[in-house]
């Protein structure tokens, strides 16, 4: 089961992203649309289409659990889901005053959880299973790391976070909680 983290600046440009595959078992969510779908294999957009319909998770798992081509694990599809969830996030963040917004959006097998810092930077996490406490702890860790990044006078709200130390720390935290 994999997780995708995006950090978005206040103007919604991505400044950091991370893909994390965890070894913990998935509590899989079945998608009803998937089974009713025709095969799209001839289409040039096969990957995207099957992914958006949710078919991938049903058909594309290889026996070895290795590479999953196409399907819901495609990079551009993930980005699209993350971007699409921003609408939901913005709706919720106007009404809720907590920073951690759990499961704000759902798309096929993906659930999107978000964390809004006081300075309006958004952390988005795409995940498959349900793991509220773990995700909250993970976001709290990322928040501390982000505040430390912010304190650097050379960092503005819109600069990409390229620090290898930041990356390592986020990965460590992901390994621990996700």
């Amino acid at each position: 089961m994999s997780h995708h983290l995006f950090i978005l600046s206040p103007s919604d440009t991505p400044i950091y992203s991370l893909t994390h595959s965890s070894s913990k078992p998935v509590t899989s969510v079945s998608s009803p649309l998937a089974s009713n779908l025709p095969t799209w294999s001839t289409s040039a957009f096969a990957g995207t289409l099957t992914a958006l319909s949710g078919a991938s998770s049903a058909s594309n798992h290889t026996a070895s659990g290795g590479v999953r081509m196409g399907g819901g694990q495609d990079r551009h599809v993930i980005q699209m889901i993350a971007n699409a969830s921003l609408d939901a996030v913005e709706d919720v963040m106007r009404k809720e005053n907590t920073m951690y917004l759990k499961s704000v959006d759902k798309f096929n097998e993906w659930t999107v959880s978000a964390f809004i810092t006081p300075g309006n930077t958004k952390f988005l996490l795409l995940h498959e299973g349900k793991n509220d406490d773990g995700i909250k702890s993970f976001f709290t860790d990322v928040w501390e790391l982000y505040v430390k990044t912010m304190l650097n006078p050379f960092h503005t709200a819109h600069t990409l976070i390229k620090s290898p130390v930041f990356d390592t720390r986020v990965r460590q935290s992901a390994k621990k909680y996700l």
Partner: protein
Amino acid sequence: MAYSQPQHPRLSVLSNSSASSVDHLSPTGSATRFSLPPTVPTSPRPAGVRPNIYDRNITKPRVLDVSGAAFSFMFAEIVSYTQKRVAGINDLERRLNTLGYRVGMRVLELMTWRAEYTSKAPKREIRLLPALMSIQTQVWRAVFGKPADGIQKSVENADEYMIIDNDPSIERHISVPKDMKQLSCSSFTAGIVEAVLDGLGFPARVTAHNTPSAEHPTKTTILIKLEKSVLDREEIIKQ
């Protein structure tokens, strides 16, 4: 390492032997005359390795005070540096505002983190009035060590709020020349306020104005002019 360095390059200048000879030469012979602490690091780092921000502790330190003299000096330099590069007073105020904005962004994040990181469900401020109150108390306390002296709503315009500081500490050692009377160096503070409001989702234009009174000759008003969208939203939430 491509080249070898002496063990402690920094210390070579102030090695123990030379420090003691300074002591010897000084008329009183007491080390306390020198404000520099004895430079003997407890855990020497290997040369070339710098401390990393991610290893540092950012929780609230026990001693919060920054030297007022040092800050006044730095702020004076900031103002005079900026003044050499601008066309007029408006431009100068705008630039001070921009500098303050950069500070405000960080103040907001750090202040909230310190207040909320232990909490089970960290909160953001989403209502306007509590946000303004927290600027008057918490932001001021974090930046200047004391709450602001007042906050008022404008009578004429519904979208204007004013934060009042009777004696802004950043202006304490600045006297503005007569021909630049409208200049308020608190534009820097206005920038901080603007960044905090922006971050919390209340975009506004914030400016600083001198409003001297008999008992407070340096009294300054920070004027907040909110964007229309903010007021519209407040109306919707109220219903």
